[in-house]
């Protein structure tokens, strides 16, 4: 079965996000003064083959732990959805 997975990777809350802060500062400067906080992360959009949704979730978590994120400094979240039939790779 094909599944679509979304993986979000972001710096741990305890770590200064300099890119995020710079962007926040810029937003405020150009007129979006209401912005309160901003953190930047990475988004991975992938399609994979797995026997079940649970298996797909397990696989994607492994990918995130081992490759997509560096858990020394980053956290991640995983969301797996069943892919529509025509969304082949």
């Amino acid at each position: 079965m094909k599944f679509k997975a979304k993986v979000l990777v972001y710096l741990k809350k305890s770590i200064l996000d300099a890119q995020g802060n710079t962007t926040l500062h810029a937003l405020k400067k150009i007129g979006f003064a209401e912005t309160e906080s901003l953190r930047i992360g990475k988004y991975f959009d992938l399609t994979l083959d797995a026997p079940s949704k649970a298996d797909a979730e397990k696989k994607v978590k492994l990918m995130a732990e081992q490759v997509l994120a560096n858990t020394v400094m980053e956290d991640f979240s995983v969301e797996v959805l069943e892919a529509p039939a025509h969304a082949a790779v």
Partner: protein
Amino acid sequence: MKAAVIVFPGSNCDTDCEHALKTVMGMDVQMVWHKDAVLPKVDLVVIPGGFSYGDYLRTGAIAKFSPIMDEVKKHAERGGLVIGICNGFQILLESGLLPGAMLRNRSQHFICKHVWLKTESVNTPFTSQLKAGQLLNVPVAHGEGNYYCDDATLKTLQDNKQIVFTYSNEKGEVNDSTNINGSRANIAGICNAKRNVLGMMPHPERASENILSSWDGRSIWESLLNQAGAVAK
């Protein structure tokens, strides 16, 4: 002394390291392709700077999966010497040979310039010829050299004297104003607990000859050669 320089796709300081170690310092140097499954018998492994795999995912993140890295780990476990410079340091962090991780420079820019390093530990094979507190003028060239680790790790590094170099100024002061990239505790280089693996962001291979703007980086190679000589005796 025998050394191997590991070449990853995207390495770009590999030939600089080869030149410094072989032509300048007279070591026996072999270039080793990252897909090789066997590491030749050497005393020193150099993981050079560059942009392995473009650093697109994270610096050093993909290189750690190269076949040669298992061999490098075994070499380190056996007590063999490993030095990772710049991207090489990042690869050592990603592969767990050294603790911590790299963030983008505080300035958000790539920084290429000469900096002052303070020698914090002479108790390593890489710094044995240096004096405690000795200042070295060595260039940096990186976009992500902002060293991060948690408090517990930092304490361990400090307690074990694993911090080898810090960013300083020409007076030897180490403080926030001399911290070029935002690294924790101004860390420019650290070693492992066994002291045979060194990772550093600055480039000693770019400061190894009189014709270049500094040759302070030589003392690291001289320490290693001296070490090898001592072992031979």
